[in-house]
């Protein structure tokens, strides 16, 4: 036995050697949890490659099991204040900063709801003696740590009984710990992540429905950008910082930030708020479909949707933060693109698989990025694009003709109504592109084209009528002008004759008053 390790000892040694390695692996795995699917975001190994890209594609990576939420702490115990908050009285007198805090709290929704200093800081709010009011041995907390703060907020806000009268949800605490923010805090103790007070404020908390609250929908993009557009702050995480800029130029950003349309999505609409994280590729259709219900239904009928995980999703064609108004340019590149098998195929597994990065580039969000000109599907895409373009052309032509007829003063109400019907079919045909079904699209586009043709025919009939009236008018005017000219000629002839007669010697028979040539009726 001496000099030779027994099998049990060898196993023990192996186990001892493996345990720290396993612990390290678990820690690193937690740090790079798939709850945070963005690349190189491990707090333990921050990435330095933070090169921003236009539109970040949703992650397709599988999610590791998240670190569970810590139990909800109990609220901080303290003596009842009996309606007097001595803390405010004393702190207001300390200095301007403390006075400002007191004022901010007094204007907060918490002050109105009876949530006082001691509820978050502990201590005895009934005493005006510092030694008693702020006695740590009696539960005074002071300024809670960032991690403590989450539990402190959760201790009330996760309590259904307490929240019942305010009709507030109570799942924010649980959701927070599923978020990228919460998971990073749990896994890496990274206290730089956003916590409750970073979004809601601390002493000056307002209702989310208050337009001056940072979490009011119109203010959310700027709120998130406060951290996410800060290159220094984001550097350790290696994530882009241009999302706010890109978003604010998108259709969504313009609607929310410029047109103040609160129905337009902010960051939280797609990423979640308390449970903030980038939507996974498998979730994108649901996320967009929350608002684009009809489009989602059409998409779900498509061949694309049948491909399930390998399918192109909303973002493949429309992008993420940089969603633009869709147009026919989404069909084809102006020049044939650089075809790479790996854009759509996993060569080893011999399966379809969309290469996410390729579609981060707006110029590549085209049907022909995947569908090669030699393929049958390319021909189908051409037919779809052709049907829509013909319908659009017919609609534009009809609109132009109606405008002409209206400009000629013709009444074109019936043509306008028919054109509205054509527009309805055209927009339906454009939406039907999400089905990828040529027959459906061509039929609806054909309907639009037919209605546009009808509208154009009505307008053309009005134009023809107008031309006829003008031509008839020219004839009438010509007759009138000829009459006037004839009258004028007759008058000139009479004038001449009068002059000749006046020039003749008096006494000639023609100059005698009452002769036929001088009769008033002959003038």
């Amino acid at each position: 036995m001496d000099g030779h390790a027994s099998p049990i000892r060898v196993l023990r040694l192996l186990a001892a050697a493996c345990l720290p390695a396993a612990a390290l692996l678990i820690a690193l795995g937690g740090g790079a949890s798939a709850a945070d699917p963005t690349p190189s975001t491990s707090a333990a190994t921050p990435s330095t490659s933070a090169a921003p890209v236009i539109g970040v594609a949703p992650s397709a990576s599988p999610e590791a099991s998240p670190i569970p939420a810590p139990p909800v702490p109990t609220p901080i115990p303290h003596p009842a204040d009996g309606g007097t908050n001595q803390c405010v009285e004393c702190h207001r007198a300390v200095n301007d900063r403390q006075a400002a805090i007191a004022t901010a709290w007094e204007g907060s929704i918490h002050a109105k709801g009876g949530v006082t200093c001691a509820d978050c800081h502990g201590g005895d709010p009934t005493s005006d003696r510092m030694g008693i009011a702020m006695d740590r041995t009696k539960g005074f907390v002071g300024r809670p740590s960032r991690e403590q703060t989450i539990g402190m907020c959760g201790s009330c806000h996760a309590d259904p009984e307490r929240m019942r009268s305010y009709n507030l949800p109570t799942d924010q605490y649980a959701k927070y710990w599923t978020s990228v923010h919460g998971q990073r805090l749990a896994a890496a103790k990274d206290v730089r992540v956003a916590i409750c007070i970073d979004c809601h404020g601390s002493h000056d908390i307002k209702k989310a429905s208050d337009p001056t609250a940072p979490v009011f929908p119109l203010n959310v993009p700027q709120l998130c950008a406060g951290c996410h557009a800060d290159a220094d702050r984001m550097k350790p995480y290696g994530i882009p910082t241009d999302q706010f800029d890109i978003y604010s130029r998108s259709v969504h950003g313009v609607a929310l930030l410029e047109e103040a349309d609160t129905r337009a999505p902010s960051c939280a609409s797609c990423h979640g708020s308390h449970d903030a994280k980038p939507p996974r590729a498998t979730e994108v259709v649901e996320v967009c479909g929350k608002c684009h219900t009809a489009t989602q239904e059409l998409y779900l009928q498509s061949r694309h949707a049948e491909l399930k995980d390998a399918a192109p999703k909303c973002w493949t064609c429309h992008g993420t933060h940089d969603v633009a108004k869709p147009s026919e340019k989404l069909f084809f590149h102006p020049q044939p693109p650089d075809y790479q098998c790996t854009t759509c195929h996993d060569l080893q597994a011999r399966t379809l698989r969309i290469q996410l990065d390729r579609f981060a580039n707006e110029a590549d969000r085209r049907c022909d990025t995947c569908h090669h000109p030699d393929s049958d599907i390319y021909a189908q895409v051409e037919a779809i694009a052709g049907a829509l373009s013909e319908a659009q052309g017919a609609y534009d032509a009809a609109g132009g003709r109606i405008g002409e007829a209206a400009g000629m003063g013709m009444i074109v109400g019936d043509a306008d109504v028919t054109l509205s019907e054509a527009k309805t079919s055209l927009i339906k045909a454009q939406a039907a592109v999400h089905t990828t079904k040529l027959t459906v699209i061509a039929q609806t586009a054909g309907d639009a084209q037919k209605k546009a043709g009808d509208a154009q025919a009505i307008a053309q009939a009005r134009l023809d009528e107008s031309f006829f009236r003008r031509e008839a008018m020219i004839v009438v005017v010509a007759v009138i002008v000829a009459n006037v000219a004839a009258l004028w000629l007759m008058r000139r002839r009479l004038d001449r004759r009068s002059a000749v007669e006046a020039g003749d010697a008096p006494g000639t028979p023609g100059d005698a008053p009452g002769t036929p040539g001088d009769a008033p009726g002959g003038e």
Partner: protein
Amino acid sequence: MGPDAQPNAKPAVSRRRVLRWLLGFSVISTAAMVVTPMVGFIVPPKSTAAGSGGKVPAGKVADLPLGKGKVVPMGSKPVILVSTEQGIVAHSAICTHLGCIVAFDDLSGMIVCPCHDGRFNPATGAVVSGPPPAPLPHVTVSVEGDDIFLVPG
């Protein structure tokens, strides 16, 4: 011309002047009659709908049972009529999203846009869901006996 011819010359000039006036007046008035409609033709009023005024017949009450709706034309604009508990109401049938013509959905009892599933309250025209950014504008209805009229606003 002898001295006794003078009294005869004066009335001749006066008659000619009267005739000249008459001819000039008829030429000018003929020209005005011709030019006025021509100008009207060449420079038509900006809106053909303007001035159409009056009530537009929109069908019979008996053809619109309670809880139903239908789209009818009002000049150049489609309008949706809905029979509600409060009476017959009408809204513009042009969806405030991208301009499709909405329809009454018997199943849901709502006004629905076929393009992107925008939904509107049939009684008020308010947006219930979907992308439309604004309610359907109200159109005044006048019911006279069994006849429904729309009053262009």
